[in-house]
């Protein structure tokens, strides 16, 4: 199902931190939402989740760090069952096994609490949990910044493989255009609470139109910095 949200906006204590924005994402596509810190990209991501949920569409969210997704006092199994119940789904060991295998956490002991797992495995567990209901959209907030590069790269590759032939669309929220460029086919650039540019990745990289996009492109690669 195509994701369609119109008129997203957020005003907090008199300041408009997100100007009215429309978002449309086709099934199975991967979209990057990039911008400098404070540009409002996380706000847009959260607003999108809330409005889609209110519209009854299935959407799930993976926060930046597993600390923001898991209760340290509860076991992994508890989290899993709770997520299933929230979607009104009966426990299904086969589905759990498929997702665990896809994200290579099948060896993890679900009776343990989060601290009994490594951070990389915790993050993959959170991703697996987000995929339980095969949502129309998966929103990921800076998924690599809390992980070590090797683990982060593995995680992104596993997720890519899993999503390859599925209808779930991916929205990757990040400050790092280098990361987004590798992972998505369409880029939305944010600045000062507005989406200022929205184009296919190749087009945006080769011919950025706005100042924000140009700045992001120029600082995309460590080895090719402008002097």
């Amino acid at each position, binding site marked *: 199902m195509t994701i369609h949200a119109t008129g997203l906006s957020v005003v907090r204590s008199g300041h408009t931190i997100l100007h009215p924005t429309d978002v449309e994402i086709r099934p199975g596509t991967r979209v990057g939402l990039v911008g*400098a*810190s404070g540009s409002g990209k996380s706000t847009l991501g959260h607003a999108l989740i809330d409005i889609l949920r209110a519209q009854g569409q299935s959407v799930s969210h993976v926060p930046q760090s597993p600390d923001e997704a898991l209760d340290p006092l509860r076991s992994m199994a508890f989290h899993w069952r709770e997520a299933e119940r929230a979607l009104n789904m009966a426990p299904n060991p086969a589905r759990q096994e498929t997702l665990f295998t896809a994200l290579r956490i099948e060896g993890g002991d679900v009776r343990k609490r989060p601290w009994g797992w490594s951070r990389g495995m915790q993050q993959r567990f959170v991703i697996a949990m987000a995929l339980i209901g095969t949502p129309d959209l998966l929103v990921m907030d800076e998924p*690599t*910044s809390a992980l*070590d*590069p*090797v*683990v*982060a*790269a*593995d995680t*992104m*590759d596993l997720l890519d493989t899993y999503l390859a032939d599925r209808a779930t669309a991916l929205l990757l929220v990040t*400050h*790092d*255009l*280098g*990361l*987004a*460029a*590798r*992972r998505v086919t369409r880029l939305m650039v944010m600045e000062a609470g507005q989406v200022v540019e929205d184009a296919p990745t190749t087009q945006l990289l080769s011919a950025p139109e706005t100042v924000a996009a140009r*700045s*992001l492109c120029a*600082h*995309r*690669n*460590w*080895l*090719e*910095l402008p002097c």
Partner: protein
Amino acid sequence: MLNVDGISVRGGTRLRLQDVSFTLARGQTLAVVGESGAGKSTLIDAILGLVPCHSGHVTWDAAPVRDCRPALVMQEPRSAFNPRMSLRRSVMEPLVAKRITPDQQHLDQLCHGLEIPPDLLDRRPSEVSIGQAQRVGILRALIAAPPLVLFDEPLSALDAVTQKHSARLIAQMQRAQGFAALIVTHDLGYAAAFADHIAVLRAGRVEELSTAPAFVDAPASAYGRRLRDAAFALGALEHVA
């Protein structure tokens, strides 16, 4: 010249660092990369003398490294400043400790080089952006002209554009001041672009030590190769076609 000679550091029952050796000359930059828990922060603490080494020693020009008063730039820019003081007072602390009267011209020059507006120093840490706080942190590290500056994940709190901006400022300051820089980072892209040498640390050991271009081309160790491939996969490095 910094000489780290076979240091080991114990932490609880295990070794946090095991027989780590390298040298670092003035004007040179060494990047230390590795996963969290590999001992990167312990290495910095050991060089600064904040944790005792149970074997080996660290010297600067054959004297204890403490004598050269090395400076440190921290990962969390704001935590390096006392929240109750103006940034100026924190910045001046290394001079106050040495009982040196601050040289306004030198300060202006450093501020100019680090793109710090003059009135910024009169604010509190909570009143400036993270990027600004980090530049003031670098200013504080450089104010007493130390021969050795350690950077502990200096860019990880910043966004992609600000990271590159700050990295360039650090490099410019290094060219002007000629200090030796040891940079601990998990970002191989940064290491490859700005360091002369890259050391890969894993489980407290130096897995490999190569020049930056050689490392990007062909890492000598299997783990080094995994790190480099991950950097490619995350867009931190581009494949050279």
